[in-house]
């Protein structure tokens, strides 16, 4: 994961996030499914790690990932409609 480029990390975050949401929907109706719970926790940890690596190397993905203390850097990243920006 550390060796992934920015786009690869972003794609991993996208797909993992979607899978976590899907598993959450399944667990809404199957709260005691051991298979679903195991898969959910594995993917949630993967997602958490991928976000951490991305934000460490390329900046925050959301305002919750802003770690600066002296200056608000959230707006320094290119916006989705700007070159280099994506959502």
């Amino acid at each position, binding site marked *: 994961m550390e060796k992934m480029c920015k786009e690869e990390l972003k*794609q*991993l975050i*996208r*797909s*993992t996030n*979607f*899978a976590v949401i*899907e*598993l959450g929907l*399944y667990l809404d*109706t*199957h709260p005691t*499914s051991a*298979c*679903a719970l195991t*898969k959910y926790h594995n*993917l949630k940890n993967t997602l958490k790690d991928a976000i951490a690596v991305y934000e460490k190397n390329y900046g925050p993905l959301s305002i919750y990932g802003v770690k600066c203390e002296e200056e608000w850097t959230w707006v320094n990243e290119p916006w989705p409609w700007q070159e280099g920006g994506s959502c």
Partner: protein
Amino acid sequence: MESYCNNRNSMSCPRGATVCSRDSLGVGNSQTMNRCDHMTQQCRREANMEQCKRETNVEQRRDANMGKYKREVSVEQRRRQDCNSCCAKEEREGNCPERHEMKNRRVEVECVCQVNPVISCHRHDEMEHLGCEFPVVMAYVPWQQWGDLYDIECGLMQGTIFKDLNFIFCGERC
């Protein structure tokens, strides 16, 4: 039907004394004989009534089978009401013999195809294998079971990570 009344007997005409008297007295001839307007209207009414009766007979024959069907259903409904009133307790307990008899007779009485064999209302039910615990007309969603998953990349592209939920909708008939 003639366009006017040929009845020259003034006695049969309520207004004959004034309208048909000339003919009844033998004074009139083919030129002087008056039309009896009142009788003409009556004849028209009678003609209309005859036409109406003929049409009604046609309608009655056309609906004869359906009428028979309706009468049979009404008889059946009355029997059910009787059964509901007198055998409610037994029926609730499953001991109403008449109810059981009617249940067996249900298809014979209620289906229009018994009157008109051209109409078939007993098509094969593909969901019949589900059994009696599923009442008809109600909608049911089968409970999802845990199964194979797509890898996360493929799941994102397919719109679901569950292979069981991935139906291919092509905008065509199945």
